[in-house]
């Protein structure tokens, strides 16, 4: 393996990695917001909300992210909605991640004893206040491990957006491969970068779990 080649190309890979991080972080943020809303809808007593949220998770979890990305990037322009690769990628990943996060948040909230909500309500809190101040802080601790998994999965799945013309880590590797035919070096380096990024995530989540378990 030609390590000097990899070192030469490090700045290019680094640019790709920055794009991967941007995509992942944005998708995590929007996906979490979407997930929280859908989770609250799913555990609400209002039937239309429950059905809407269930429909969303059913469709998204039941189809491949690649199909969803193609639908957004290649399909929507046919009905007049043209998106650049970056917004298309963020939207696709957020919607997809959001569906999985919905289930994580729902399960986390439902794992908290019902008495907690009732106690908070009887002390003068509205439903949403009780959620925010009593239920979610407790559920968060239980949601951390599956959330960590989901974020790592999202980071790795971001490689799929290379197929809709996003130049991120994976696309950088395929471009270098196409230009130089140094396949081993190109994909080895991409792999190392991914591993490095997922390791950072793992460490952050381990720290968070540790911190929350002490409190």
């Amino acid at each position, binding site marked *: 393996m030609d390590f000097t080649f990899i070192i030469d190309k490090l700045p290019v890979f680094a640019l790709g990695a920055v794009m991967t991080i941007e995509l992942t972080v944005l998708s995590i943020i929007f996906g979490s917001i979407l997930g929280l809303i859908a989770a609250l809808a799913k555990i609400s007593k209002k039937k239309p909300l429950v059905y809407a949220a269930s429909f969303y998770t059913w469709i998204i979890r039941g189809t491949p992210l690649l199909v969803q990305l193609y639908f957004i990037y290649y399909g929507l322009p046919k009905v007049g909605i043209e998106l650049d690769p970056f917004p298309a990628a963020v939207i696709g990943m957020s919607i997809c991640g959001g569906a999985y996060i919905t289930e994580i948040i729902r399960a986390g909230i439902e794992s908290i*004893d019902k*008495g*907690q909500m*009732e106690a908070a*309500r*009887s002390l*003068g809190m509205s439903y949403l206040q*009780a959620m925010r101040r009593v239920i979610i*802080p*407790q559920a968060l601790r239980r949601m951390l491990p599956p959330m960590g998994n989901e974020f790592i999965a999202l980071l790795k799945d971001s490689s799929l957006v290379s197929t809709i013309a996003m130049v991120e880590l994976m696309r950088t590797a395929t471009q270098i491969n196409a230009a130089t035919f140094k396949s081993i070096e190109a994909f080895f380096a991409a792999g190392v970068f991914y591993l490095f990024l997922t390791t950072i995530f793992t460490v952050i989540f381990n720290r968070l779990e540790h911190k929350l378990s002490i409190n």
Partner: protein
Amino acid sequence: MALLSLKNISVAYGKNVVLKNLNLDVEKGELVSLLGPSGCGKTTTLRLIGGFVEAKNGRFVFNGKDYTKIPVHKRNFGFVFQNYALFPHLTVFDNVAFGLKQRNIPKNEIKKRVMEILETVGLKDYADRSPRELSGGQKQRVALARALVIQPDLLLLDEPLSNLDAKLRVKMRLEIRKIQQEYNITAIYVTHDQEECFSISDRVAVMNNGVIEQLDTPQKIYNLPRTEFVANFVGFENFIELELEAKERGGGGFYKLKNGQRFKVTHFNGREYERYVKGAIRPEEIDILNEGGGKETNTLKGIIGISTFLGKHYQYVVETEVGRLLVNGSAHKRYEKGERVTLYFPEDKIVLV
């Protein structure tokens, strides 16, 4: 006018009717217990008052206002849960302060009131602990403090002592009663423990199958149950079918048993005369005499069956002409199986139901 009135309340989960046209009035400052076996509707009644259960029919009036549709968090009722439901992510202090913070009370005022109530429940030194570090009894005190500190208009307690051991239960129920009277707070207390309920309550509502069978003082419930269910629940184990023969002045009468034997009954629980009734009597109120002993009325011949030793006395199953009865006898003398005896039923110990 009563502080709290449930008027013709019905609650149903799907087709399963839990409360049927329930009526209940509670006066200010009273502690009323809801007593009954599991599934009788007592917890549902409490949760309805708290706002956690919706009525299908009927109205809940509190302090002259219709509370039927008022959401939980606007009722200002303190609720003490069976499993305490303390907030595990908050300290004891923050648990108790929780309801006050919600009411935008200044910080130093919150501190003062929280420490005051923690002192009342004997947990002043535990303010900085996490609920995890507390024993069951201490958790219960925190739960009580948390419900009381908001100065609730009504205190609701859902089997608050059922997770504690027997000795602690006795101690805590005295404390709850003391605090309730000290703060002159109106309280509704759900329990399935008779002794606990009698010791703590001003009045007791015995519930069965979604209705209140009897609402009375503990003494009256215990001594003068009005229905067969209540009688059975408070330990009247024997029910003898009676037919009215002659009324007596002063509220009593002569009744005929199925075997033709006569019983005189004087102790009325306010029941109207009815031709067919049942006479209820506790095992310990029946006297065992040697065969042929005693008077002509209020006796029955019997044959001793199985006996069990209960510490204070022996309990016998006695076969009689009107059925099998449970009778307690002195621990000093044990009747043998098959022995023939005469049972005497004191006329003032029989309660008509």
